[in-house]
């Protein structure tokens, strides 16, 4: 039974402490019980298989299983950007030991918070130091140590750390480390087995490499997306919304290219480790950039220019390659519908026709819409989606979803994060989950999608780490430096 307290609420700020999971538990309503879900499996003759998955893949069992990258030693050396953070998160979730090395004053990302609101930062229970949540969320299973590599002693320590590491992830401006004598070519002399991965925005070399402003400011996302056509191609056309009011090229809401660079970095690193362990015994140098790794996943966009000099244009919530495949507005938000093959296309129509008899007349009977490829023409999209939206405007997302799921259509609402966190399937798995942290209290976080495995699931063991918390442990473990030495170096500004 929760404690009953008197609270006075005069402003939004007064409510903030009341929202924490300690007070307002997550999830607000419990996920469906397993028995209910078993019925779902049975309905489609997959009872036995469903139970097998539950018994062998469940998130909750991950802690009883081994870690795939046990014993892999990783250094993460980067500021500001998500690329190095996400890359090292993936390795850490899979069981690698990751030391996040920060300058003594800390990564500036620790200080970033939406709209500058300090009340939305989490406070270290011991020191009262505040930390931004983007940083905390990506600081998973990582140790934090501090080191000033611009001092001579710091450089020596850095080299010694690198001598022990299997992997070093670096994300500083081009050539900065090399100039300090700490780049790949110098460290490879000390540790030829080192796999060294530089992550950046456009590149550490080449005519359009990453820049630093006259005053030392770094190039951050979405510069990557601007350089590879992603931003240009995303957003609504000015034919649907006026320019300046949504009909413009649009960036991703998150630092998306950074995440893509991070995961490709992790793949290249693992491939390099495999080659090192199995064939050559040698490490190597890797360079991964946000603009390029995101370009890798821009479908055919630039290839299309090579085909017939087409320059991809924006298509808003619609996709120019498949029909149906879009989201459109409905009564309480936006509803996504997808189904391109003939089988699915007519099933969507059957579902809509139940409520709107004219849909069949206008859409199914139109000879121009009978062929799968032809349905992707612009006029076909306009027509199909106008009539579909006429159906959608009458209902809420959940009603539309239920109706479409009855016909086994891939359909889903555009959800906001509160709805994501309470969506039955998501909390059943769970895809967001709470974790206790010593310093920052209970934190709701997105779990690793690689958590659902038979043998070596990835997992989050802790989240967030105060600056330099692991200085004593890790300098002792890795380099045999006793606490007095560490303290002394700290007073000299080296650590």
């Amino acid at each position, binding site marked *: 039974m929760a404690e009953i307290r008197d609270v006075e609420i005069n402003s939004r700020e007064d409510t903030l402490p009341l929202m924490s999971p300690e007070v307002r538990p997550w999830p607000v309503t419990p996920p469906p019980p397993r028995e209910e879900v078993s019925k779902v499996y049975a309905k489609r003759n997959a009872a036995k298989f469903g139970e097998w998955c539950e018994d062998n893949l469940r998130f909750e069992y991950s802690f009883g299983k081994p870690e795939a990258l046990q014993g892999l030693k990783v250094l993460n050396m980067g500021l500001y950007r998500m690329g190095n953070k996400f890359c090292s998160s993936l390795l850490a979730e899979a069981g690698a030991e990751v030391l996040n090395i920060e300058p003594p004053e800390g990564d500036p990302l620790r200080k970033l918070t939406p709209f500058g609101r300090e009340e939305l930062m989490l406070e270290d229970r011991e020191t009262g130091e505040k930390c931004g949540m983007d940083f905390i969320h990506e600081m998973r299973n990582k140790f934090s140590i501090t080191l000033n590599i611009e001092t001579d002693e710091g450089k020596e320590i850095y080299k010694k750390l690198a001598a022990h590491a299997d992997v070093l992830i670096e994300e500083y401006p081009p050539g900065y480390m090399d100039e300090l004598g700490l780049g790949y070519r110098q460290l490879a002399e000390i540790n030829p087995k080192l796999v060294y991965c530089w992550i950046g925005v456009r590149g550490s070399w080449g005519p359009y490499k990453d820049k630093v402003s006259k005053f030392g400011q770094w190039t951050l996302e979405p510069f990557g997306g601007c350089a590879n056509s992603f931003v240009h191609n995303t957003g*609504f*056309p*000015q*034919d*649907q*919304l006026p320019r300046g009011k949504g009909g413009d090229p649009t960036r991703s809401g998150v630092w998306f290219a950074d995440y893509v660079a991070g995961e490709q970095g992790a793949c290249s690193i693992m491939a390099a480790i495999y080659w090192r362990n199995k064939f050559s015994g040698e490490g190597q140098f890797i360079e991964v950039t946000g603009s390029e790794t995101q370009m890798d996943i821009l479908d055919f966009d630039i290839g*299309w*220019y*090579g*085909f*017939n*000099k*087409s*320059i*991809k*244009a*924006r*298509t*808003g*919530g619609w996709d120019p390659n498949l029909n149906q495949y879009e989201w*459109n*507005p409905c*009564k309480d938000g936006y509803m996504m519908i997808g189904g391109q093959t003939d089988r699915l296309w007519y099933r969507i129509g059957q579902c809509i026709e139940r409520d709107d008899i004219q849909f069949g*007349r*206008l859409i199914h*009977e*139109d*000879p*121009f819409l009978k062929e799968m*490829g*032809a349905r992707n*023409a*612009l*006029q*076909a999209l*306009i*027509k199909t*989606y*106008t*009539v579909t*939206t*006429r159906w*959608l*405007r009458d209902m809420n997302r959940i009603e539309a979803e239920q109706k479409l799921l009855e016909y086994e259509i891939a359909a889903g609402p555009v959800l906001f994060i509160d709805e994501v966190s309470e969506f039955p399937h998501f909390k059943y798995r769970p895809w967001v989950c709470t974790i206790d942290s010593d310093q920052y209290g209970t934190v709701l976080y997105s779990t690793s999608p690689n958590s659902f495995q038979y043998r070596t699931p990835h997992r989050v063991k802790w989240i967030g780490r105060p600056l330099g918390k692991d200085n004593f442990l890790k300098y002792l473990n890795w380099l045999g430096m006793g606490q007095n030495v560490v303290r002394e170096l700290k007073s000299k500004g080296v650590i």
Partner: protein
Amino acid sequence: MCDIIWCKKEIDGKKCNTVNYLDPYCFWNWEGKVNCAECKTVYYIHMIQGFMYRGPEEVDEKPDTSPLYADKPLEGYTNYLPGIEGRTRPYECLPRDIYLGVADMVKFSARGRPVRGWRPQPPSAGIAGSFGFEWDIQKLTPEVWEEYQQKIAKGEVGEW
């Protein structure tokens, strides 16, 4: 009363019967006048959250805009594509100045070398539809090979 306007205007004793599609993002919340793509009758509409709050009411004024697409389901679905002057709204956010909507038969890439972007193509000569790892263009489609030689001679084939 929906986000299509099925125009029933009688012209020369015959109903217009054109369906004008009011695309959802543009018209979801919108007030103004829009013309029928066929008979050019102007309708006043006021849409809120996709519903016709008022209209369509015929008015004798100039339209503010046009539908993007319109067709005539009762007459074999003949249609007006986007960008027909005075009938449909232009759609400018396109990848090229020419809009096709059907497969573009391409024989050469942007830098002028042959690419297999046209049909029909001769069948494979292998067992069970197997393809090898070469495209002997000179043998399979000599006319494209010839065209390619002319392009080379004219200096139309570049590195990029």
